[in-house]
């Protein structure tokens, strides 16, 4: 089963001017074309504002497509108690299976003290977190890894595995901590190739960041893996099996 670890719900009010993506229907069609059966879905607009409302939007889509969508919530550590209450609501009311955090868009440092109560609560629920990585100064792989070292029960997925500039330290992070996983959206070929050589295929996960890439975005991200000629075993792990282990599905 092919699972895409990284998809956003673009809604009308959501920062669409930021970069043009495609609509939900367009990108689901694109995922269909790529053979993606399930995908993790989280907000884009809620990373900037109204995170509770954005979590409701994810829940609504989940109710419409329960077989396709693996819903992830988000919460903003700046909101203190309210942020913790939203974690409770995401898990107990909305049925979220994990959390997405985007430190630079949401305006916090991943290793700031604000994050500790948030991570404690997520850890209590045993939920995974997918954290944007690769952008200085607040979303660097080793900063996320430092947090991961303090919460060994939480599986940390490094979205973009450090992107273009910090993939070397993303691999270092994964080598040092077994609860770090690397997700491939937007990462150059050499990064995935090196990660396969240095840590093996068991903790590398396919993601497309759809619909950020626009039309053809998912296909492009998937072709990147195809041309690496992974072989059947590694391909199955990257395209879904690894994520199934994290999510217990």
């Amino acid at each position, binding site marked *: 089963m092919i699972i895409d670890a990284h998809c956003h719900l673009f809604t009308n009010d959501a920062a669409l001017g*930021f*970069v*043009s*993506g495609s609509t939900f229907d367009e990108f689901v069609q694109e995922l269909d074309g790529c053979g993606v059966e399930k995908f993790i879905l989280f907000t884009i607009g809620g990373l900037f504002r109204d995170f509770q409302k954005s979590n409701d939007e994810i829940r609504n889509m989940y109710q419409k497509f329960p077989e396709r969508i693996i819903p992830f919530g988000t919460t903003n550590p700046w909101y203190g108690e309210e942020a913790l209450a939203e974690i409770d609501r995401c898990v107990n009311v909305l049925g979220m299976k994990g959390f997405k955090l985007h430190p630079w868009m949401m305006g916090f440092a991943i290793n700031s003290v604000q994050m500790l109560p948030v991570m404690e609560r997520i850890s209590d629920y045993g939920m995974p977190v997918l954290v944007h990585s*690769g*952008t*200085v100064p607040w979303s660097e792989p080793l900063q996320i890894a430092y947090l991961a070292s303090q919460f060994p029960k939480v599986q940390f997925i490094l979205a*973009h595995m450090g*992107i*273009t*500039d910090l993939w*070397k330290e993303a691999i270092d992070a994964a080598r040092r901590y077994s609860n770090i996983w690397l997700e491939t*959206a*937007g*990462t*150059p*070929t*050499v990064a995935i190739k*090196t990660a396969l050589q240095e840590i093996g295929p068991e903790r590398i996960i396919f993601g497309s*960041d759809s619909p*950020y*890439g*626009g*039309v*053809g*975005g998912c*296909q*492009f991200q998937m*072709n*990147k893996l195809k*041309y*690496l000629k992974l072989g059947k075993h590694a391909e199955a792990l990257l395209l879904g099996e690894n994520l199934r282990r994290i999510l217990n599905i």
Partner: protein
Amino acid sequence: MSIVAKTLGVERIIDSHCHIGQSPYVDQPVETLLAEMDEAGVEKAIICAIGSHLVIDNEEGNDFISGVVKKYPERFLGLASVNPWYGEKAVRELNRSITKLQLSGLKLHPVLQGFQANEKLVFPVIEEAIRLGVWIYIHSGTPECSLPLQIVELALKYPEGKFIMGHMGGADFFLDVPDPCAKVPNIYLETSLTCHPVFVKEAIEKVGSDRVMFGSDSPTSNMKTELEKIKVLNLSKDDLNNVLWRNVHRIFGI
């Protein structure tokens, strides 16, 4: 015409940004690059140095690139690497590379070479490139030394200079590329390592397809992967020809 070019509906494909040589993470002999080009249907490519050839051993690197270009004149043009920290020596090496080694332009990598793209240190090298009339390719997208707006600033300071913004902002700086570069005619954009197809599309819409050039950054990225990124944009035939070969053909004569 290669089958791939035919499938894409273009007359030919030229890759404006490839590497040969060794660095701590990659090792690409020329034969590997040629095989990749043949498989991807890429007729010609512009090559430049990596690793120590790019950063410290510039003479050795330029001799190496020049040797490969002379061995395969039908397939390659080469860019010279000089590190501006060498001062006068860098200026002389650029001159030697263009006039004696028949290299075709200058490649700068502010992050690896250790300077900020628009700082005074690099001015003598830029001025020499302008005297020689060659294009200047600059890596972009990496804070804090190689940012698009630093390159825009450099291009505004030197309107007679001819600049190529490599990776056009890379993963994170796509907001700084389409609009600012639309107003600066002496900057061309190179498409490799942009992490989403839509960034290229937005740049083409704002800057125009006559200033955007396909590059793969092989072996950091993969030629076919990078070609797919252009393919999925569904460009008009004219735009596709511009991006996949016509622009680089026009400005480098390759």
